[in-house]
Structures are given as structure tokens and as C-alpha cells.
């Protein structure tokens, strides 16, 4: 588990001006919105003042799918205390087409019982996503946490357990 502090909030707001207009779908318990990585960073920045946990996943990534029930369960308290969980589906990093990305992510999120916002990232190359996020993202899943000031405080690479998610969430609240 790597940990670092990067001032990103100001940069994120600047980036937001460049992002594409998102397409949103409302479902029963969560929303699904397609946007590029810059748009995702804008969403993170928009929650400044609250701790934010960002989970990067994809429907074609078995460990990503496997950890989501634990993510949901482990962050209930965190969310109840004002923390924010954002889910970012990196469908097009794999071989999912732009057309199929939102339906696939929506169906899987619904099946898993996701109850927080889902963003479907329209960027399809890891190096683009890395450059925008300012984080050395390797494989999926990844969980990034940002403190109330918008600083990245933790990067968890790979699948996490419920207990690990609880620890990660607590780290963002400090």
C-alpha cells in the first residue's frame, strides 16, 4: 500500500473545464455517468471538504468485481459519516467498446448492489488515465483515497478485503 500527499484539488478544477459533457443514467440506487478521466477528477474535486474513496474497476476484471461487495459493506459507516465513495469503471481499457461500456458497467453494478455513483471512464489508455490522475496506476483494481483538502493520501493496488477497505476509508477521514 503506497501512501503519498499530492496537492491536486486546484489542478483538478482547472482540468474540469476541459472535460466533456457527461452522459448520466439514473438507476434505482446509483447513478451511472460516462465521462473522461478529467471529468472524473472534476468529480473528485467537487467533493472537496469531504474524504473521498475512489475505486477503479472494470467488468472484465474478476478481482475488481469480487471486491465490490466488500467495498459496499466496508464503507457504509464511512459514507454515513459524510465520506464519499466514487466508482470508476475503466471498461475501455480492455476490449469493451464505447457503445457497450455504460450498459455493461450499469448491469454489473446493479447485480453487485452498488449504492454509490458509478462513472464510466471514456479514456481507453492507461497512460492517459495516469497522466490525468497524476498517479502511477498499474493494474486494476485500484483504490485511491483523498482527504478533505483534496490531497491523495493513499493508493491501494490490487484487490482489498473488507477489513482493508475499512482501514483505507479511515485513512481518508484523518
Amino acid at each position: 500500500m503506497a501512501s503519498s500527499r499530492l496537492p491536486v484539488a486546484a489542478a483538478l478544477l482547472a482540468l474540469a473545464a476541459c472535460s466533456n459533457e457527461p452522459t448520466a443514467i439514473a438507476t434505482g440506487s446509483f447513478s451511472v455517468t460516462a465521462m473522461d478521466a478529467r471529468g472524473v477528477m472534476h468529480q473528485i474535486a467537487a467533493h472537496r471538504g469531504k474524504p473521498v474513496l475512489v475505486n477503479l474497476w472494470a467488468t472484465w476484471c474478476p478481482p475488481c468485481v469480487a471486491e465490490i461487495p466488500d467495498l459496499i459493506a466496508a464503507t457504509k459507516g464511512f459514507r454515513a459519516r459524510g465520506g464519499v465513495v466514487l466508482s470508476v469503471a475503466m471498461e475501455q481499457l480492455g476490449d469493451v467498446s464505447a457503445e457497450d461500456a455504460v450498459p455493461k458497467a450499469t448491469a454489473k453494478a446493479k447485480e453487485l448492489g452498488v449504492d454509490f455513483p458509478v462513472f464510466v471512464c471514456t479514456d481507453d489508455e492507461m497512460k492517459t488515465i495516469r497522466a490525468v490522475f497524476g498517479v502511477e496506476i498499474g493494474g486494476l483494481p485500484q483504490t485511491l483515497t483523498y482527504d478533505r483538502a483534496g490531497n491523495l493520501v493513499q493508493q491501494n493496488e490490487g484487490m482489498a478485503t473488507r477489513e482493508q477497505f475499512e482501514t483505507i476509508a479511515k485513512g481518508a477521514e484523518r
Partner: protein
Amino acid sequence: MKALLTTSLSFCLAAPLFAQEGGKEPAKPAPAAAEKAEAPKKLQLGQRLNGETTLLDIDGKPQNAHDLLGTITVVNFYSIKCPIQAAWDTRLALIQKDFEGQGVVFLHIDSNATEIGEAPPKVEGDAKPYANIRDHLKAKDLPFRVFVDHGNKIADVFEAKTTPHVYVFGKDGRLVYKGLVDDDQKDRNADNRQNHLRDVLGKLTKGEKVEPFATKEEGCSIKRTKAAPAGADKGDERGGKKDGE
């Protein structure tokens, strides 16, 4: 040279696989040896590997590293299901084709529990295990020699995180590169991409010195076998099966 590499490129996987292959109970290791096996040394840039000397091929046969290694060796952590690996398959096969004749050996290792299972499968008669890997290579016409890594022991020694994740051992058996095949995942920038693997192999085959370096890997996380916490019933398998894997 080969002797140097043989002692260096070796894995802790060997002993239990040999034992299971023959259907015999493995000899119980001495306590000290067992403790040692539980904490294999992690491979660092500039280092050689230490340990046993066997890999399991997709026919289920243990192979001695003596017979596998070349003057220069490329190890790639592989997946038959990862779309990011698939994006690099053709380029990786081309690099392999270009360098195999120059003494470079390519070994592809599948450590994904969701693809190979947690333990070597039992096969009867002339049946061969790992049909999924064999079928995949045939369908895509890939010349990859794939080995399997049950329990991700090799992946753990290498600290391999994704598929693909490439490692290059130079003529002295030391690890000189780990990371990407190139920096062009989607194959859109052939004229301007950083061809890390090809460039390293080009230098090594010409006898040029390569200072050990790494690039950040990109790919699907290796689906490791996880020891389930007491009382818990979860792990990679759950998601894999749900996802049709």
C-alpha cells in the same frame, strides 16, 4: 553462461510440483527449510534469482530451468483472459520471433488462479491439462511457451503485479529490466512509442551494457490465490465465476 543463468533463474515452485506429478507424498522438508520456503527472497533489479530449478509446463510436466534458459531470458507474466495482455500479444510475438534466433528465450508464466486453478489438475490417461491455455494459443496462433504458477509463488518472487509484466535477464543472469513491453497499449503510435522490451533486447544481443531499470507495468492484476481468513468464504474465485471466468 547457461550455468550462470541456471543457478540464477530458478524457482521455489519445483519441489511440490514434482511430488504431485508423480502422485507421491512429498518428502517432508526439515523445519528450517520449510520456513525458508515460506519467505522466498524477492527479486530486485540487478539481482539473480535463487532457489529451486523447475517450472511446470502446460502438459503438466516439470521442466528444469537448465533446459529452458537462453543466453538472455525474457519472462512475461501472462493471461489468456486479460484484454490488456491481448492488446500486446501480437507485438510480443513479433519481438519473440525477431530475437529467438539470437539466443533469447521467452518464457510466459500464467499465475492467474482463475485460469489455471489453485493446484495442478488431475488428468486421466492421455488427456492433457490446461486445455484452455493450449486452445487460446492455437486460436490466436501465438508461439508462446507457457508455464503455470499455481499458488503464484513465482509471481510473488518476481513481485509481478499484472499481465503483461515483462522481466529481462541479461547475459550475466541479472535482472536488467522489468515493466512494459512498450508504452503503446492500444498500438496506435507505432512510429513514436517507447519500445522498451525491443530496445533492451537489441542492446543485450549486441553486447551493450544495460543499466537496470523499470517502467510502471500496465495490465490486469494477477489473480492470486489468496489464503482465506478464518471463517471467511471468499477470494478470487467468487468474482471470477460471477464474471464467467
